[in-house]
């Protein structure tokens, strides 16, 4: 029998056995989908975005479906970093895949405090910073829309941890490359592109917004072309690895992101539609490489032919 292709990738010092990661907020606290497959088989797991204090989240309705997409305004509901470490992490450490915590704060200091807390904890392999949330000190514009603020958040986290730091960018900017370069300069080991895109929907019968929060984040296949373009741009702008996500539903979608240069990919909304998506992508990439006689996945990454 043929030798299995090598799917392992290196994300800023973090070694993954394959490039398939579950996206924050779409995989619970990491163990909920074990009835469907063993998460140890994934490249890594990113858990629900965590804040210093527990957050109840937004009033319902929190979700609305749009053509090939999902709008959500969960309001970053989470149990808080402390409860996560005490109640969820012990179960997670049994999983033989790196666990990445996704964090967000309302102020730069909150990000720093989260980094300090996580630094002391074993069993967390890396930190992903969500900078798509409103900066309460700066009038509510997202941290990730301004290069200086993005760099400041990144710098504060990097200087308070020895773990690899991934910065997850917001797509809602004029030029994503300026933000990407800013966080790279500030010490990020990798960049995730993209978070959900701002959107809204209206129920014409009730004449109300479909989300109680009015505005939400759009994810799912609808945004795939936009996400792919942003990844393509960021890959060209920075040297650090880029993790691609946005609308990935199967291994062919994953390949699109790898071809434009993503070193790994994340599966988000697809987990809701088919909870086995992530593991099926691992299998799909393995089969694809075998079929195409590709011994190492790195041969595909950035392999887009443009001439």
């Amino acid at each position, binding site marked *: 029998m043929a030798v299995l292709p090598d799917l392992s990738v290196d994300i800023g010092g973090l070694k993954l056995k394959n490039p398939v990661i579950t996206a924050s907020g779409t995989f619970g606290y990491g163990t*909920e989908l074990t*009835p469907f497959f063993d998460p140890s088989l994934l490249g890594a797991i990113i858990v629900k975005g965590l804040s210093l204090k527990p957050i*109840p989240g937004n009033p*319902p309705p*929190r*979700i609305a479906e749009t053509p090939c997409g999902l709008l*959500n305004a969960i309001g970053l509901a989470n149990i808080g970093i402390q409860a996560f470490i005490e109640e969820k992490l012990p179960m997670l450490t049994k999983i033989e895949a790196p666990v990445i915590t996704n964090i967000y704060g309302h102020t730069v200091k909150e990000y720093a405090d989260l980094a300090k807390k996580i630094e002391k904890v074993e069993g967390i392999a890396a930190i992903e910073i969500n900078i798509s949330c409103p900066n309460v000190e700066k009038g509510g514009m997202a941290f990730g829309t301004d290069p200086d603020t993005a760099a400041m958040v990144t710098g504060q986290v990097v200087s308070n941890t020895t773990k690899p730091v991934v910065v997850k960018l917001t797509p809602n900017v004029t030029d994503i490359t300026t933000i990407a370069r800013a966080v790279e300069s500030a010490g990020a080991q990798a960049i995730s592109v993209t978070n959900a895109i701002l959107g809204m929907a209206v129920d014409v019968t009730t004449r109300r917004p479909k989300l109680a929060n009015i505005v939400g984040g759009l994810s*799912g296949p609808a945004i795939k072309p936009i996400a792919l373009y942003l990844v393509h741009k960021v890959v060209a702008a920075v040297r650090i690895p880029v993790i691609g996500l946005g609308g990935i539903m199967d291994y062919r979608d994953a390949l699109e992101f790898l071809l434009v240069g993503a070193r790994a990919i994340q599966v988000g909304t697809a987990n809701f539609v088919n*909870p086995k998506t992530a593991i099926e992508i691992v299998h799909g990439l393995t089969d694809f490489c075998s079929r195409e006689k590709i011994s190492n996945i790195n041969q595909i990454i950035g392999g887009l032919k443009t001439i």
Partner: protein
Amino acid sequence: MVEETVALKSNQQIGTNIWLMEFRSTLLASHAKPGQFLMVHLGERTKDPLLRRPFSIHGIQDGDKVMILYNVVGAGTSLLSALKEHDIISVIGPLGNGFTLPRPSEKAILVGGGTGLAPLFFLAQVLQKDQRNTVTLFLGFPTSQEVVRIQQLKDLGVNLSLTTEDGSLGIKGVVTDLLDQRLSNKGTTKPVIYACGPPPMLKTVAQKATTLSLRSYVSLEGYMACGLGICLGCAVKAAHGETKPYYYVCQDGPVFPSGMIDWEVL
């Protein structure tokens, strides 16, 4: 909880916009409890609509036949209704908590509005099998056009009463009228109420139950993305004094003791 790919045994229109779907699954049939639900995939051919759709388990028959009773209300249910015998779908389940069954001493009153009948049929199946107490079932529909599954319910031996809003079948009125009438009848032991239907109906039931200090369970239909507890999309506001600000319909429910829910904002 399993994901299974099943071939439809049948999928037929049985009323105005109302369809009954049947497939065989020993696994689901043997594990399912009344009040639990399935997340049904709409087929591999399209990504629009994107998400699975939640449906109550309507009943189990012949040991392994699982039934879903559904209303065609939008794009997703319209796609489902186009499926034919032998077509393949993926279902995930059984999900959620299910109804807490009455104690042997208790009488159950089931109250359904429209397709709220869906999970109550299964509950009636199970309770009637027990043969401890005859189940009382009150069902309300807009018109006689939407009335379905009556013969099958009668076959179960339940004690059935009907309302229609236009009076075209059964008693003219809404289903909670029947409940009112029954509850004003002080003679009998305190019943447990099981209700499923539109939110205003459930709210009325909850209020009556509170007033009369009755135990009552409501099955809610929140918007769901995953049904698996991972998206936190299906929040409902918990009643004042509960330990959590929100409950999640797919995990903490879909069945709730009516006192747990904040009915002001539902």
